[in-house]
């Protein structure tokens, strides 16, 4: 049974967590994520879940306690943002290396400084090599759907990798929209019971987790991680298909919007893609063949899908809500350029870093990017790297 609710992104995530009913949640507050665990703790206090809620003294402890619970065989979650993610950095890698199926909402926020609490992707983009699967959400509906699907992906016996489910701070986390929720039973049946491959609390089968791993075996364990990440793409697609059958809402690694005959395209992640869709509709009415590729799953990187989607375009703008300070565009720009390297016909490709520290990206800003792409198609030169909307 579907239930329609008007919810903020944070409320949607907290409701998904209530339906998931994890065994353990260890969390520390940080803006703009705080509301998720605060609302979830209400569910704990009201007896709506059976969760052991651990109030820890830092994000490093939040992730450490979550790792401990997961190693014990529990379904364990936490949530964070920006500097909180940075503070748990060391153990973020350990969660992935220990192959613990932890699912963590991350509400994207600028990684200071100067201090800023608003949206950009500098926090999770920094964690792109940590061995976590990364799924990004355009709106509250996707945040809800992605969080539930992430449980199945993480806990799949062949995958056993942690998942970050990301959504834009304030723009989505504090913006209210109508979303469709499934009823508790449907969600609980969909995610099923968590059966850990190993448990530290299984005293009849004592095991050691996280031992010293030196030159002779460490590399083999990294290869296993890389292989699990590679195999996770198929699982992500399968879980999405099953979710679609149940809910009618479809998901894939990427979403193509009006790409069938697109000559110019934007590739972006998160809430800005919603804005881009509106701009595209306007441009299409004027006869401009504009399209959008939205990245839903950033790790593992959907290189083939992206290359295929962009194959027939003439010019593409890759929009990164994070500055890499490499003087070579953002992380998405570089990954996409690399994805097209083996293709004989490649579109022209430029990088736009945008929206840092919560700077609004308005329809006019997106329209200006498409205007740039039209000039590029006509043969005009454009700089490879651009900072969209910054005052010159």
């Amino acid at each position, binding site marked *: 049974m579907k239930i329609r609710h008007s919810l903020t992104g944070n409320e949607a995530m907290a409701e998904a967590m209530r339906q998931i009913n994890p065994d353990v949640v260890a969390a520390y507050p940080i803006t703009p994520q705080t509301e998720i665990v605060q609302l979830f703790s209400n569910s704990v206090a009201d007896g709506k879940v059976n969760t052991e809620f651990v109030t820890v003294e830092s994000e490093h402890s939040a992730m450490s306690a979550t790792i401990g619970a997961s190693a014990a065989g529990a379904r364990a979650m936490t949530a964070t943002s920006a500097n909180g993610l940075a503070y748990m950095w060391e153990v973020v890698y350990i969660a992935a290396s220990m192959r613990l199926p932890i699912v963590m909402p991350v509400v994207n926020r600028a990684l200071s400084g100067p201090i800023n609490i608003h949206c950009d992707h500098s926090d999770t983009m920094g964690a792109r090599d940590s061995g976590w699967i990364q799924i990004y959400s355009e709106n509250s509906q996707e945040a809800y759907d992605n969080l539930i699907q992430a449980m199945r992906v993480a806990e799949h016996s062949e995958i056993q990798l942690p998942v970050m489910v990301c959504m834009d701070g304030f723009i989505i986390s504090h913006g209210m929209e109508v979303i469709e929720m499934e009823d508790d039973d449907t969600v609980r049946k969909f995610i099923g019971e968590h059966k850990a491959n*190993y448990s530290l609390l299984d005293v009849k089968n004592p095991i*050691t987790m*996280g031992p010293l791993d030196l030159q002779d075996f460490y590399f083999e364990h990294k290869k296993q991680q890389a*292989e*699990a990440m590679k195999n996770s793409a198929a699982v992500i697609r399968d879980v999405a298909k099953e979710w679609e059958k149940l809910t009618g809402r479809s998901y894939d690694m990427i979403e193509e919007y009006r790409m069938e005959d697109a000559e110019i395209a934007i590739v972006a992640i998160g809430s800005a893609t919603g804005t881009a869709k509106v701009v595209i509709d306007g441009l299409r009415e004027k006869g401009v063949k504009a399209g959008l590729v939205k990245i839903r799953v950033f790790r593992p990187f959907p290189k083939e899908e992206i290359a295929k989607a962009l194959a027939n375009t003439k010019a593409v703008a890759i929009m990164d809500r994070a500055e890499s300070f490499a003087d070579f565009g953002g992380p998405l720009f570089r990954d996409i350029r690399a994805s097209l390297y083996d293709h004989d016909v490649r579109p022209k490709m430029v990088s736009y870093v945008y929206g840092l520290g919560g700077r609004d990206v308005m329809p006019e800003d997106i329209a200006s990017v498409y205007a740039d792409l039209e000039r590029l198609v006509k043969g005009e030169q454009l700089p490879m790297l651009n900072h969209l909307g910054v005052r010159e």
Partner: protein
Amino acid sequence: MSEKKVIPAGATWKEIPVAGIIPTAGTAQEFKTGDWRTRKPIHDEKKCINCLRCWIYCPDASIMVKDGKVIGIDYDHCKGCGICANVCPDKVKALTMIAQSEEE
């Protein structure tokens, strides 16, 4: 307890448990650490009063005890730290450290 399985050196990534998990207990027994030793404790049965201080303090569980009596030292695992000789009471001194080379 599940059967002890030792992973052979040279096993491929497909053959080993994920994440370095050691899926059985007691595998340290298979790992002989005795060859790290530069000094070696010698136990004198005649002097020993079997107070078992050495057994309590030994960090490698290498003092072998049977029926409440010290019966020897597990040289496969003793690293020669000398704690046993140090905690052996002054009036007893049933444990003395010798250089590993002296004995060879």
